[in-house]
């Protein structure tokens, strides 16, 4: 392509415009969240005249986004911790230990990948209601863990497969039990994969709305994304507050993305190339 620099620029122009179209909606929302209601009605596009945080604090306090935020943080943290624990345990066993039935168990885990939540929503909600787990944090956490575990097991297994089995053998000769090998060798060695899978899982859980809607009917158990959906009806005439609510839900993702973009992209890429 270096011999046709003109062609490169011809492509670069639409690509830059697309890049602009990709981030503009979010920038617009940030700007609106800083404006007063009157400013927004007078001119939607002008830059805000001051960095105003009143709308954000209204959304956080009186709209209840603060409460939902705490709920989301709680549920996501517990879900990701369990996902990483169970995922790495199973990944280690399925990749490094040879035992009867291991390939059947691996297939059972993989089969979970092909069962989306929508398909099992009704029976799952019923089971959860029967066992008293509906509208409880453990219930939602369990649903998240079940949802993202197949993917986590799959990625951890393929990551641990790249670790030479001599390392495990050597650790065993040094007198470690299987659990010792897991705790002292496999967990530390798995850090890059755990980080990558952990971030992806955190995003998936944070961004979910359907499971949370089905599992958490009562208003004080709402997670942040369900909170955002409830803004629509109530604040459709107060756009700056609406935009602030949206922003509260988006900011953690934005921060994670700015700092950990590589790990997220690597996780997605690993999921595709190992498939």
């Amino acid at each position, binding site marked *: *392509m270096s011999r046709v620099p003109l062609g490169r620029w011809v492509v670069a122009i639409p690509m830059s415009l697309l890049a602009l179209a*990709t981030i503009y*909606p979010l920038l617009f929302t940030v700007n609106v969240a800083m404006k007063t209601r009157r400013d927004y009605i007078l001119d939607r596009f002008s830059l805000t005249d001051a960095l105003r945080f009143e709308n954000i604090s209204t959304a956080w306090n009186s709209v209840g986004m603060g409460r939902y935020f705490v709920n989301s943080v709680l549920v996501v943290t517990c879900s990701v911790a369990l996902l990483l624990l169970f995922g790495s345990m199973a990944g280690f066993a399925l990749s490094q*230990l040879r035992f009867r039935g291991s390939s059947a168990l691996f297939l059972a885990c993989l089969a979970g990948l092909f069962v989306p939540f929508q398909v099992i929503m009704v029976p799952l909600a019923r089971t959860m209601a029967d066992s008293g787990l509906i509208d409880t944090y453990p219930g939602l956490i369990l649903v998240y863990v079940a949802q993202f575990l197949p993917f986590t097991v799959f990625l951890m297994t393929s990551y641990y497969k790249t670790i030479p089995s001599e390392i495990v053998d050597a650790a065993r000769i040094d007198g470690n039990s299987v659990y010792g090998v*897991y705790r002292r060798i496999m967990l530390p060695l798995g850090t890059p994969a755990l980080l990558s899978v952990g971030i992806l899982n955190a995003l998936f859980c944070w961004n979910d709305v*359907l499971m949370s*809607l089905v599992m958490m009917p009562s208003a004080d158990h709402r997670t942040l994304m369900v909170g955002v959906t409830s803004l629509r009806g109530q604040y459709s005439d107060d756009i700056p507050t609406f935009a602030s609510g949206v922003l509260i839900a988006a900011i953690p*993702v934005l921060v994670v993305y700015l700092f950990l973009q590589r790990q997220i992209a690597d996780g997605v*890429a690993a999921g595709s190339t190992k498939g």
Partner: protein
Amino acid sequence: MPIGNVQPSVRPAQAGRTDGAVARSSVRRGGARSRRTGGGVWSERLAPLVLVAPAVLIIVVLRLYPLLLGVNFSFTGDGARNGMAVGLDNYRELFEDPLFRTALGNVGLLVLLLPVAVAIPGLLATFIYLRVPGHRLYRGVYFFPAVLSPVIVGAIFNLLLAFDGPLNAVLGSVGVSPVDWLGDPDLAMFIVVGVHIWATFGMALVVFLAGFATLDSALLDAARVDGASLPQVIWHVIIPSLTRTIQFVFVTTMIGMLTSMFGLLFVMTSGGPEGSTYLPEYYIWIQQGQMNRPALASAASTVLFVIMLVVGLLQINLLRRAGKEA
């Protein structure tokens, strides 16, 4: 080497300070001193199962078993006929319901739009791979909306596309009369799908770029030396070498369209106007949660599952055949 068998011979210390082989044979004899050792071996033998158990149990109990329950449930009745076997009644009702038919029609629309949703990130990834100016920046920017929740994306676009919103204000300033983007039954579904593609093309882009990383650059250089044009390079070099990646993107994009648009539909249109933006997943949710028709919802779930299986298998087959011909 099977770990379970290594254990007794490599850990004489725990095996009662005797030779490993002796310890093993004494286990078989059931000697009093070595029963403790036998327990150790057993716990080591069981260790792999213990490690796998939580994951497998959760997946089987909360994913695979509910699938069977749901299929079973779809042949029973709702309300007064709760729990009674009703044969195919739910399915009959489902296919007579105009809302579900619209949902299936919209699935057809998604299938038609699928090549577009795959070609856009594919082409962009090609340009980034060929290092257009600014290629480092594009990847980071394009991928960004893919990490946002559909709910957030939907809420932002609600704002932008409102009848009295900014987009119509811009159009108005150049003399175009306002368009009811989300209120026009002929338009709304296209808008929602468009927003979905806007939000997710970065994901497919990253997958494509991972595929490009495995591409043999010597092939590209050879084609370039032979004077191949860009379309020729794409058609004769890139597409054949990336069949697996393209296949993967086709299947995941379709599955994404079938299973991750709920947030957008819920926030942007709630299935309206006039039910024109229903998809099976939205229909399932409405019947289960709002209409209190869980058995009917289960039938819709089963149909969605079959659609997903068919789509997956069909695409894999088609692409495999195309790959062989090329």
